[in-house]
């Protein structure tokens, strides 16, 4: 093939794939280290999914409660992740996030303030003290805009010095990378296309930082945008890196499933806290049938008692709608699977018949306005249709905690943000993702820059690899016999949503793997109509390959892990197993097939593990580990 002559070529020291919080922070760091840096953005600059984060960025600054410290934040993070976190990442994150937040103020960020003029911090689930720096409910937007404007300011400095805004840092917007190119085991380049023209582009670079976010588009109901197709996960796998913890996905039990205009948007738990009840299509308030024995004592058995709780919580037991998230999700899942769901595959969340309209508007103003404006749904008049929604993936590229360098057999590849794994263990605390982006974005960018200094020679891109990448990218356009990419995506979403969703069973997971193998055959023959210029069908056809391989990782790891922990719930293994806490499941690619291996978790340093009470550790650790802890405690006393 002679098409290589038409490929635009660029040379950079560091190429950052992804323009969300982690990618932009990494790029800033690489540019500050003096490296010529490219940012590849799948959408326009400043539109990344980071804008969706509402709550805030967790950092133990102690502005609201001075007793807060990195140690407390570290403990909260480990607890939230059910002790499966990479302890070193949790430690670095807790220690460094305050500096990363303060740094944003020097870039122009304007957080909400305390009375004495410091950054205000709010309470959030799982955080012991008020800890989330925030700007109303648009913290993610503030973060992305601040980083975007910092990059512009660096470009203005370069313009003053070199006469060119893009002398040392350039944003390639609406550009998608389809392949990483290697020279032996070293990263040599990244190949992709411009959405606008469909022309190909080759970045020759010794260092690549992946910051591509998550995988939610593989699910039917998700709060994620179209970009979330697991590109970084798949690029890393194909380049020889490994993924860990891919079985852990965060689902919210009550995302809207209908109408389509708000599908995936989360309905806050306070709707249930304020009296909202869950009903199936028979109109039955079904949660009473799903109270597990361990919770029996704390939860009401009759509707009358449950209803009295809202006004008299001291003398009555809680309504079962307020069971933990995974229990509620399990119950919704069971009702839908038993055929008692709504046509859209959810259940009814009814607050309209429970409180006067005025009261609903007063207590839930943003919920009321959001649904009224986006969907013309009046939650004071009609019940909502809700179901579990895919929200965040804890798993991702296995990295060195300090540098963000990808594990496996590839050098020059780094990862930060949602695409990396380990930091959040089996479950992420709200607010920890924004600070994660900043802490590990900076680290990955800085280490990618210093990695390029260690190279004696620049890795070279091999011509046949480029030709192969061109051929793969053009294939869907040249076939006209295959299926539509939209159909294939719907089928993939159905498999993942129905069989590898929030509640998992061995038989269904095995079934999912069979169906994914069938889908792999069909995706290999996908065809896209139309030309190369801004053709979303073609783009989806290319993304499908990534979604598929990442889904296989999730399904395989979910089948393997025979316990329930955080974002992985197995109905056939409903409890946490201390033996499984010592194991990470690692995915790699051999040829075309996903390989799964077990790898022991790194052991927490003694000064960190002694931050916890023995009673708490006893819930997570094996007897053997507890004995070690006791010996340690004795030595210290």
């Amino acid at each position, binding site marked *: 093939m002679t098409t290589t002559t038409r490929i635009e070529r660029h040379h950079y020291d560091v190429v950052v794939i992804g323009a969300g919080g982690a990618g932009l922070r990494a790029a800033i760091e690489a540019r500050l280290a003096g490296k010529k840096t490219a940012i590849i953005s799948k959408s326009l600059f400043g539109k990344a999914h980071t804008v969706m984060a509402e709550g805030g960025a967790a950092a133990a600054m102690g502005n609201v409660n001075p007793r807060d410290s990195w140690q407390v934040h570290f403990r909260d993070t480990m607890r939230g992740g059910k002790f499966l976190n990479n302890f070193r990442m949790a430690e670095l994150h807790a220690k460094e996030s305050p500096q990363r937040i303060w740094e944003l103020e020097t870039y122009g960020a304007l*957080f909400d303030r305390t009375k004495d003029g410091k950054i205000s911090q709010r309470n959030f689930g799982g955080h012991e003290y008020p800890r989330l720096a925030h700007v109303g409910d648009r913290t993610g937007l503030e973060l992305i805009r601040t980083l975007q404007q910092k990059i512009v300011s660096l470009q203005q400095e370069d313009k003053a010095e070199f006469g060119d805004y893009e002398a040392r840092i350039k944003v390639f917007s609406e550009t998608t990378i389809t392949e990483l190119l290697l020279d032996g085991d070293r990263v040599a380049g990244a190949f992709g296309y411009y959405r606008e023209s469909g022309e190909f582009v080759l970045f020759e670079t010794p260092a690549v930082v992946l910051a591509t976010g998550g995988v939610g588009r593989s699910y039917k109901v998700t709060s994620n945008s179209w970009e979330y197709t697991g590109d970084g996960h798949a690029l890393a796998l194909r380049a020889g890196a490994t993924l860990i913890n891919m079985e852990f996905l965060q689902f919210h039990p009550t995302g809207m499933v209908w109408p389509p205009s708000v599908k995936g948007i989360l309905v806050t738990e306070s709707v249930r806290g304020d009296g909202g009840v869950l009903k199936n299509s028979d109109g039955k308030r079904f949660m009473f049938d799903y109270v597990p024995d361990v919770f029996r004592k704390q939860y009401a058995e009759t509707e009358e008692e449950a209803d009295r709780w809202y006004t008299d919580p001291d003398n009555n037991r809680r309504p079962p709608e307020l069971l933990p998230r995974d229990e509620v999700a399990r119950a919704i899942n069971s009702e839908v699977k038993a055929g008692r769901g709504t046509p859209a595959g959810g259940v009814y969340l009814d607050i309209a018949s429970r409180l006067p309209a005025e009261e609903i508007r007063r207590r839930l103003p943003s919920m009321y306005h959001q649904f009224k404006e986006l969907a013309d749904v009046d939650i004071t008049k009609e019940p909502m249709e809700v179901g579990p929604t895919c929200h965040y993936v804890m798993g991702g590229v296995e990295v060195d905690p300090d540098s963000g360098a990808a594990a496996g057999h590839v050098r020059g590849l780094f990862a930060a943000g949602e695409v990396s794994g380990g930091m959040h263990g089996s479950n992420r605390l709200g607010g920890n993702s924004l600070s994660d982006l900043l802490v590990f974005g900076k680290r990955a960018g800085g280490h990618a820059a210093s990695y390029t200094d260690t190279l004696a020679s620049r890795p070279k891109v091999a011509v046949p690899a480029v030709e192969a990448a061109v051929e793969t990218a053009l294939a869907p356009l040249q076939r006209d016999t295959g299926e539509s990419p*939209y159909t294939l995506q719907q089928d993939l979403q159905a498999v993942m949503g129905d069989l590898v969703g929030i509640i998992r069973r061995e038989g269904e997971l095995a079934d999912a793997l069979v169906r994914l193998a069938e889908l792999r055959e069909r995706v290999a023959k996908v065809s896209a109509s139309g030309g190369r210029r801004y053709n979303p069908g073609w783009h989806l056809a290319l993304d499908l390959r990534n979604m598929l391989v990442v889904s296989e990782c999730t399904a395989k790891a979910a089948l393997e892990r025979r316990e329930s922990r955080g974002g992985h719930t197995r109905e056939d293994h409903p409890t946490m197993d201390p033996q499984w806490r010592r194991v990470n499941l690692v995915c790699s690619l051999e040829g075309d097939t996903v390989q799964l291996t077990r790898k022991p978790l790194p052991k927490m340093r003694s000064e960190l593990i002694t931050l916890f009470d023995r009673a708490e550790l006893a819930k997570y650790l094996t007897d053997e580990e507890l004995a070690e802890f006791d010996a340690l405690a004795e030595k210290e006393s």
Partner: protein
Amino acid sequence: MAERNSPAAGDAAAKRQFRIWRGDDTGGDLQDYMVEVNEGEVVLDVIHRLQATDAPDLACRWNCKAGKCGSCSMEINGKPRLACMTRMSTFEEDETVTVTPLRTFPVIRDLVTDVSFNYEKARETPAFAPPADVAPGDYRMQQVDVERSQEFRKCIECFLCQNVCHVIRDHEENKPAFSGPRFFIRAAELDMHPLDARTDRKQYAQSEMGLGYCNITKCCTEVCPEHIKITDNGIIPMKERVVDRRYDPLVWLGSKIFRRGETPQSSVTSARAAGPAARPNLDGVHSHAGGSHDPQAEAQAQSGVNWHREVPHPTAPAVDERGKLPLTELTFDRAAAPSPFGDDVTFPLPPEHLNFAHPEQDKH
């Protein structure tokens, strides 16, 4: 999902008539589609359905589908809107929905336009200048002071305000000299930032960003999906203070003696609009001669004469670099001449701006 229907809807999904502009920079036309529409859907849902059925290569930008990212800007029945925020229920059952790309920017393909103009203007707007003597972690600001800038930082950069602005809509020739509402509020945001070290934001907006082209028709405010008061809270305060500085000889003298841009409060507007700290409330009307929301001034006016009122200095029109008003009759947006008092002046004028002393009261 597409075949499903809400139980609340009851009946089968209806087919609706859509006209969508298809084409690229070489030309194109409106194409008709009959497409299924279900209850509760927005225009973006319908476009997605079209992509999955009749038009798999229909180009359209979108990301969050929740009104937070500003990607799906387009013109729906001629109005600049976010497709994810435009509910199908706002149209009549038999109404044809016409969807076209943003008109102010060059078309790439179908509904996707080249918005790089905005990113160029962003680069030309000087960035936040951190104070040299404040270390990270030592920034102290009051909530009331940051809120002014926070209003402008709500901007999701959908560029609908840029698209609707008549200075550049159909006026390609104005684009080099005009940054547009999005970047006027960026300048205002930095001007009002309690710790920004630059002091020439307003002058810069006037001399380099083309603030003078704006004649306050408020179209930008009308289309803003974030409901930012672009004109009232951003552009008008910037304009007033620019005018003070540029044409007041006292201020000019003062700026030579003091630091450039740090103006002593000497004119009628600067008493209310000098710096962020001096301004009590931005919610009120903020015009030279618009209605007054100042209770003290109102009270004074009620009781007689406001002797402390400073006489407004005459202001020259904001002209472009050729020394001309940035308008000609040919390109002006109305048939007759503009009001000699300016478009933002409404009558009657607020009483505290008038120095009439009632003869009866004078006797006391």
